[in-house]
């Protein structure tokens, strides 16, 4: 009797099968991640092994951090925003990061800025971004409540506003200051500084640890604000804490590879499609793994196979942009 079996361990065979499928998918994703990381490190090494491993290790390390940060932040942001189309990238978060960085150089001058180490510089940026980010997004979610298209539009407008302000501020800078800023802003990931990598990795881990206790509340937040409040969740608190974690994660990924508008969007939606579950422990883990897979495999193809013919962010934005338009069209029709 299926009914009796369900009573005994609270799970019907169908539920158990779904659970198994989630586990298997997560396992397969993890395996693929490891495979691609190893392949990235070992593919066609010529010359000094020590040099290759050092360089590639740093590259793959930053790709993993970016993948994890983008995956986790986008997935929980979707939940908090109550929409599968809104991700930090779409809402102009990473553009804000660049603006914050430029403003700091603009106000304090590049000498002060460069006197800080890479790590400290990042922490200052991330701190300011988190502050602004929370204020901005609290205001945004409150004022134009739940009209998806308005939010998307606001995000796009804000994104280009931040980008224009950034270029405006950098135009006002002394050419020398501008050069140093450009070095910092577009830290090409092929030459990632070790200290920046270490700081961002540590910050990402801390942010993820902070996210863990929020996950089961996010399961409920996914039911919408009213249902979450009705079930006794301190909605405002959970949303604010989650947004804080999101801003920190966006800061880490932007600091390492610059803005990748649609990476999070692809990754989070792919994870949701692959995993037939509503539980955020599984979803966030899956999203991190898909993120790592996208960045590492993507860079493997772009860097090794296509011989740097293009850059990862171009590919991600091309694929992601198309995907975004498809998602938007599907949602609007509904």
């Amino acid at each position, binding site marked *: 009797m299926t*009914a009796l079996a*369900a*009573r005994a361990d*609270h799970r*019907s065979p*169908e*539920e158990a099968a779904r659970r198994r499928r989630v586990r298997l998918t997560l396992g397969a994703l993890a395996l693929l991640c490891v495979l691609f990381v190893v392949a990235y490190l070992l593919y066609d090494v010529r010359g000094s092994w020590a040099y290759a491993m050092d360089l590639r290790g740093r590259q793959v390390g930053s790709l993993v951090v970016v993948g994890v940060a983008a995956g986790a932040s986008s997935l929980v942001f979707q939940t908090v925003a*109550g*929409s*599968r189309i809104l991700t930090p990238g779409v809402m102009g978060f990473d553009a804000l990061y660049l603006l914050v960085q430029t403003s700091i150089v603009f106000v304090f001058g590049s000498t002060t800025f460069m006197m800080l180490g890479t790590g400290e510089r990042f922490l200052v940026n991330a701190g300011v971004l988190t502050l602004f980010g929370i204020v901005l997004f609290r205001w945004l979610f409150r004022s134009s409540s739940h009209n998806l298209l308005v939010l998307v539009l606001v995000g796009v407008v804000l994104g280009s506003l931040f980008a224009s302000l950034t270029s405006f501020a950098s135009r006002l800078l002394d050419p020398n200051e501008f050069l140093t800023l450009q070095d910092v802003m577009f830290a090409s990931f092929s030459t990632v500084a070790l200290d920046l990598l270490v700081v961002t990795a540590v910050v990402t881990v801390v942010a993820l640890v902070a996210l863990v206790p929020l996950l*089961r*509340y996010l*399961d*409920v937040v*996914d*039911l*919408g604000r*009213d*249902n979450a*409040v*009705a*079930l*006794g*969740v*301190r909605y405002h608190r959970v949303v604010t804490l989650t947004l804080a974690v999101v801003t920190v994660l966006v800061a880490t990924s932007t600091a390492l590879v610059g803005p990748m508008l649609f990476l999070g969007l692809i990754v989070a939606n792919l994870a*949701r499609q692959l995993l*037939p*579950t*509503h539980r955020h422990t599984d979803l966030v883990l899956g999203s991190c793994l898909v993120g790592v897979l996208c960045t590492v495999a993507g860079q493997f193809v772009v860097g090794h196979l296509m011989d740097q013919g293009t850059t990862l962010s171009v590919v991600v934005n091309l694929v992601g942009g198309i995907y975004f338009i498809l998602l938007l069209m599907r949602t609007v029709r509904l």
Partner: protein
Amino acid sequence: MISVQGLTHRYDRTVVLDEVGLTIPVGRLTSIIGPNGAGKSTLLSVVSRLLRPERGQVVVGGLDVATAADDVIARTLAVLRQDNRIAARLSVVDLVRFGRFPYSKGRLRQEDHDKVEEAIAYLELEEYRDRYLDQLSGGQRQRAYIAMVLAQDTDYVLLDEPLNNLDMKHSAAMMTMLRRAVDDLGKTIVLVLHDINFASSFSDHIVAMRDGRVLHQGTPQDIMERQVLREVFDMDIHIQDLHGMRLGIFWTPGAPVGPAPVMSPTSLTT
């Protein structure tokens, strides 16, 4: 008992609740009726602390909803709003398990699982237990939501238009089920209803609202009066007694229609 005092709320400048004072009896089924924009849903939202009013106090079962801890209220009072569009991939049983969140914080114990299965059985959803919500009909989905609310196992249950999306058969079944929950389980249930005849046939107590005020309240006998309904709905409704139930005949073209509605300055359009 639910007691409401001096409740006032505005959206922008429009007054939606105007000094509402009200007592809802315990262990009874109470229906709130009234025209669109009367403030019914707003009242329900405020009572269930989904909306913070400008002024006024709400006490449910001895708890002041503005100050009591969120999870304590969630174990006393359950509420379901009208529009529930959930994007998450949930099966019926997943959804119903959320009803236990105020108790388990997501880690269900034996007792929680029992309540979940009980609620599913109570709404006759066993067959659909493992279906995803988007694979259900509107009526089945509505029952799944109600099952979640019942699994929350609260003394007070507030439902905003629970008959929305339900056909006649399922509407009648839903009302019968809610009636049973009051009679068998001793729950206090408050509904916002549009159909005065469902309100009349199944409720113990009816609250009639208009323009953000409670105009009348009382038993179905008291409220289902031509005079009262004219005041509330601006319609001349013929009342018919049928086996002790009072029904309002408002849908026949033969029933005389009252004078054109006079819009008072505070009346609302939505």
